[in-house]
């Protein structure tokens, strides 16, 4: 995995997620502007673009859920044929994003994302 953008302090939070079997990478993304804050991604994953799209999707979902009276979004999961994207917003507005294989244990990734969100604050 590459860790080109990995400010000190964020590494342990990302480690919580990437150590789960089937996770191909994890990122911290600024929810406001979709920029990468830190990342641990396998080669070939275009982190910058994925971060921008994940932030945009997160924003749409958050607004839709608030409009529907469902409160803040706690976790969301984009399900695909060959894998998935899993996201938990941290209280600060940073998104913890995981890219995973199709057979990953989604429940476990969710738990680790929530722990990482707590750690990031």
């Amino acid at each position: 995995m590459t860790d080109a953008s990995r400010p000190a302090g964020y590494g342990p939070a990302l480690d919580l997620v990437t150590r789960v079997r089937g996770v191909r990478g994890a990122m911290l993304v600024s929810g406001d502007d979709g920029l990468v804050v830190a990342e641990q991604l396998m080669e070939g994953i275009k982190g910058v673009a994925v971060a921008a799209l994940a932030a945009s999707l997160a924003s749409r979902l958050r607004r839709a859920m608030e409009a529907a009276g469902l409160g803040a979004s706690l976790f969301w999961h984009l399900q695909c044929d060959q894998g998935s994207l899993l996201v938990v917003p941290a209280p600060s507005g940073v998104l913890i994003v995981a890219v995973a294989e199709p057979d990953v244990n989604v429940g476990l990734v969710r738990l680790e994302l929530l722990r990482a969100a707590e750690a990031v604050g």
Partner: protein
Amino acid sequence: MSDEIKTLSSQLAQDPDSLVFLRLGELLRQKGQVDAAHRVALTGLERHPHLADAHDLYARVLADKRDYERAFDEWDMALRIAPNHLGALKGLAFLYFKVGDVGQAVAHLEAAWKHAPDDPGVAQALALAQGARVGGESPGAGRAAAGEPERAARAAAAAAAELAPATPAAAPLDDARVFAGLEGAQEGLLLLDAKGQVLGGALKDPRGRDVTDAVAAYLAGVSHEAARTTKLLGLGRWSGVAAEGKLGHIHLTPPGGDAVLLVVRDRSVPMGRLAIIAQRAAAAARRWLELDR
């Protein structure tokens, strides 16, 4: 019927104060175009608020939409304006049957029968209703009457069916019926196109307020973005987005084309069950979209 609808629509466009909206609204109902009938009835009612027939038409449309509470108010208003209004008396009798108040249902039917003794629907419903009342009011009959409540309930149901506003014709393209028969069809299922325009269903927040348009607007383009993200990551095709909120969950599914199906449930519904509900709703939406092509 379509020609008559066109003619009446044209007449109404030329003269918006015309009473042809009554016939037009009823024809649209019968054709299963409940939303169009709703618009016509509501516009007509706004122009003729003191016309009992306008309230009656609007009540029938509301009953089609299973908004029985407001249908009751409209029929009640029709009766205040015209105390012997046959449609309102039958409508209220129907609603009283629906809530199991056979006594009130019979009272309204008897009033209807006085003014329309030749109406076969009223006579038939009254006979059934009286059977239901007799069956339901025999507590002293002891063990011999063990089957009476069931018979009474069946009779009441038959009477309600007799009185039910004429069922709209099957209309697979009517947006109100995309999810007909599915759990939460009136408040927790929404079908949108890529621009966030509502194709079917409706959404209410936990306080019962209609939030359909607001939610649809925020989800405009979500299908496109999900597809782009998936392509960028080389994950094949996206099959859904499940999201967990503090007070409830949502599930988005692409039923076909650029459309998006949204299912909303409170937190008591586990995410896995929500996915099953979403799959069923997506199948209904897919059929509807295919018919629309």
